């Protein structure tokens, strides 16, 4: 008897999504090759601090997965496909329990059960956490499970390896991947039933960010260059509080403000005095003054916009630099040690200053991409997901899948805190059964296909990398990368204007011109990072175009995409329930102006018209060396979109 064929997969990336998927595939009898730049235990998921959301409602607050779902789609300004978000929120409690069983050291209640805490922008204690390193702890638990399967022979890890592209057959079906060994420099093809990109976000397009050095977006961009659709690229989350530094911008968790941290700048521009010697009345607590209700705890996008305004429009940054104070010095040292010890230690380690004694200097930083490679899903007809469908998480290239931050589906126009760890683990686990089905139903398999396509694609990449090594122009690629980041930070960040976006597109084209004049700084043959860096830079230039062109064409203000010119100017006293009422009344004919406070009906009509045009997924496709932009419908079948308001 022939032994039963084991389905074979290639998973690229060993963060939470890639590891969760690998574990799930192995459990179902799959054989996985796991490809990663670095040992998977060092993946970027380790950087997440705050926690992971699940509406388990252990404190009798009345939280539920449905509320979690509503908060998430509202947080994303209704741009996310609702069945997916709803399914994720319903799976969340089981995911937390699973991670707990895998040994994650989640903080406990006195009875020894899971503890939950509040997080920015939600009314419920929904966030499970493991100290101040929740991402690291979740990553390690999954890493350990995958190590068990590696020990048992079901997983082969290719660490210090890089994904270059998919191998597509004549029908355009993905049959494998081209991989680059970062030590030997060898480029080879791998065969598999399906390839999954669990390659994280593209933060590096912006130069210095809260991202890790591997968050370069190259793998998803490579898929885009091979014809896969890229979605919602212009939606980039900027976190309001990070620690500026020469090499990266490190995150300072929202919880610093939750424990009483106050944000301020000196009222006098470029005030040279020691901050502690500046008297109270000469300090500008701008968040508290402009938002008396939420004060320092306004949502992330609002805080980032305010800080941007203070620093660039009002020229009030600390020492004339793009920085503001985040001040905890009014709290007792004992209180701070107990409540915030971990994150304050990080600040001290990296700046040499003790935040218990001097105000921290912080500034917004690029943090997360809501957009990513386009992926599919199949709903079950009841507002949830059919977990057996091979369509789940498949890109527009058959057989090529994506998961985690690399995809686009869960956070709409703005992500809520502590939802990213959830979406990463959720996609990894959810798509597993569909991938098994996909393998089972394959007509002809990679074993039946001539090896020519593998050899050809491999040889193209060998040629390309050889050409990179021989580049002998005048430009240093690392400098070029920094220049690209500067263009993006200056023009495609918190406040977006069409004139600047147009200018940025021109500048990106200039950078692409300079790219051709690169000098490869290292031409050796062993463990040489330079050719890879050049390839990644090429991808980042293409991705910068996707982000910038998407932003230029989207003439509205939605979530993290803020264009003042197209602000619908929500009336101050507006209540989002009015909109639901308006929609009901509309069923019965013309709605009289007098039914609502003055100006509200006109605003709601503006909102409605705007949604008709712009409540759409942005799709970028690679045509003639440019992203061609089109739009797709968003599935809003579960709850009616309505104006966001957090006052």
């Amino acid at each position, binding site marked *: 008897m022939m032994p039963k064929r084991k389905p074979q997969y290639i998973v690229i990336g060993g963060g939470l999504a890639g590891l969760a998927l690998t574990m799930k595939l192995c*459990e179902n009898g799959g054989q996985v090759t796991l490809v990663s730049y*670095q040992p998977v235990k060092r993946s970027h998921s380790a950087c997440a601090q705050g926690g992971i959301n699940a509406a388990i409602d252990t404190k009798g607050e009345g939280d539920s997965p449905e509320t979690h779902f509503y908060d998430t789609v509202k947080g994303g300004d209704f741009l996310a496909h609702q069945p997916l978000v709803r399914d994720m929120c319903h799976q969340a409690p089981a995911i937390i329990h699973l991670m707990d069983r895998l040994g994650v*050291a989640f903080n406990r209640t006195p009875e*020894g059960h899971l503890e939950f805490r509040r997080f920015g922008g939600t009314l419920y204690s929904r966030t499970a956490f493991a100290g101040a390193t929740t991402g690291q702890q979740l990553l390690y638990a999954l890493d350990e499970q995958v190590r068990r399967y590696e020990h048992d022979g079901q997983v082969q890890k290719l660490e210090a390896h890089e994904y270059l592209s998919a191998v597509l057959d004549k029908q355009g079906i993905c049959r494998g991947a081209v991989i680059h060994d970062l030590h030997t420099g060898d480029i080879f093809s791998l065969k598999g039933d399906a390839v999954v990109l669990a390659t994280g976000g593209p933060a590096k397009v912006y130069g210095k960010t809260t991202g890790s050095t591997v968050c370069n977006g190259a793998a998803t961009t490579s898929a885009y260059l091979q014809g896969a659709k890229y979605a919602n690229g212009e939606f980039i989350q900027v976190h309001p509080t990070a620690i500026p*530094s020469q090499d990266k911008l490190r995150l300072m968790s929202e919880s610093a403000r939750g424990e009483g941290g106050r944000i301020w700048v000196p009222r006098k521009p470029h005030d040279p005095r020691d901050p502690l010697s500046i008297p109270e009345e000469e300090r500008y607590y701008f968040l508290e003054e402009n938002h008396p209700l939420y004060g320092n705890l306004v949502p992330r996008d609002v805080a980032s916009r305010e800080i941007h305004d203070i620093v660039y429009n009002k020229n009030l940054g600390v020492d004339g630099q793009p920085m503001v104070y985040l001040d905890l010095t009014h709290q007792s040292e004992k209180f701070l040690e107990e409540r915030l010890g971990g994150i304050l230690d990080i600040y001290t380690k990296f700046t040499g200053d003790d935040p218990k004694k001097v105000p921290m200097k912080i500034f917004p930083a690029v943090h997360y991409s809501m957009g990513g490679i386009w992926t599919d899903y199949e709903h079950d007809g009841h507002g949830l997901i059919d977990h057996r469908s091979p369509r789940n998480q498949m890109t527009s290239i058959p057989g090529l899948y994506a998961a985690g931050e690399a995809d686009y589906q869960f956070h709409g126009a703005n992500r809520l805190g502590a939802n990213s760890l959830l979406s990463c683990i959720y996609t990894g686990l959810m798509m597993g059964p569909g991938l098994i089905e996909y393998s089972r139903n394959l007509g002809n398999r990679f074993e039946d296909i001539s090896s020519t396509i593998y050899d050809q694609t491999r040889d193209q990449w060998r040629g390309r990398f050889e050409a990179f090594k021989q580049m002998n122009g005048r430009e*240093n690629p690392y400098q070029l990368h920094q220049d690209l980041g500067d263009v993006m930070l200056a023009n495609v960040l918190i406040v977006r204007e069409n004139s600047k976006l147009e200018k940025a597109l021109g500048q990106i084209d200039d950078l692409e011109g300079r790219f051709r004049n690169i000098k490869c700084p290292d*031409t050796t043959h062993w463990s*040489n990072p330079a050719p890879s860096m050049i390839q990644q830079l090429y991808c980042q230039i293409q991705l910068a175009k996707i982000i910038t062109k998407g932003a230029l064409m989207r003439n509205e203000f939605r979530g993290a995409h803020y264009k003042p010119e197209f602000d619908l100017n929500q009336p101050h006293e507006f209540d989002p329930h009015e909109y639901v009422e308006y929609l009901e009344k509309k069923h019965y004919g013309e709605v009289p102006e007098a039914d609502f406070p003055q100006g509200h009906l006109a605003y709601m009509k503006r909102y409605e018209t705007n949604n008709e045009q712009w409540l759409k997924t942005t799709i970028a496709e690679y045509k003639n060396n440019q992203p061609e932009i089109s739009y797709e419908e968003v599935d809003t079948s579960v709850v009616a979109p309505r104006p966001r308001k957090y006052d």
Partner: protein
Amino acid sequence: MTENKTIVLKVRRQEQPNSKPFWQEFELPLKPRANIISCLMDIQMNPVTRDGQEVSPVVWECNCLEEVCGACTMVINGKVRQACTALVDTLEKPIVLEPMSKFPLVRDLHVDRSRMFENLKKVKAWIHVDGTYDIGEGPVFPEKQRAKAYLLSECMTCGCCLEACPQFTKDNDFMGASTFSQVRLFNMHPTGAMEQEERLEAVMGAGGIADCGNAQVCVEVCPKKIPLTESIAEIGRETTLQLLKNLFLK
């Protein structure tokens, strides 16, 4: 003192695992809040030595740059530590960078620490669960116990403890403090404890706990302040008990 301050970096370089190491010096403008990573990044942008020679940029490993991934560990001014938290202002000049000496060298400051991950397999550093399906809550775990486990679970497999350990060498098979501490972590967990014996057996053999010379330097260099010597003592006790059990009960 001039307006434009500079710093000098002396870097031990080696092109291949078996080639001859050599030294290069780089002079860089001193920037505010610079760390070793930003200096190495500056070299990437302008790979020219102090004597004006154009060279290939220095190769090193890094990722998170906030001391949670463990990647950028190297020997800085003779002390093993992460390059990201090594702030230039606090370091004696000139700054001397060397790769860790206890692991096979890849190139320049980049070494191969896969031995550490292999050791985690030997001691079964995982919780053996029935499956990933939704079978309800995890075990009750007292917070005090959990807090102890959390300290151990912050180990980022950076290798500082092994670089400093006189017992751990390139050509022996000593597992070292980080592995013993992981054994303690998994034995401490209510479900993990069910495989306690297998883990103890693994550290009772060659390269195991008995080879520890009790130098106690591991705990001094651990960037996460993990109580490694406590873990070693605990595993020592547990293995002694296991040995007695094996003598009398098997």
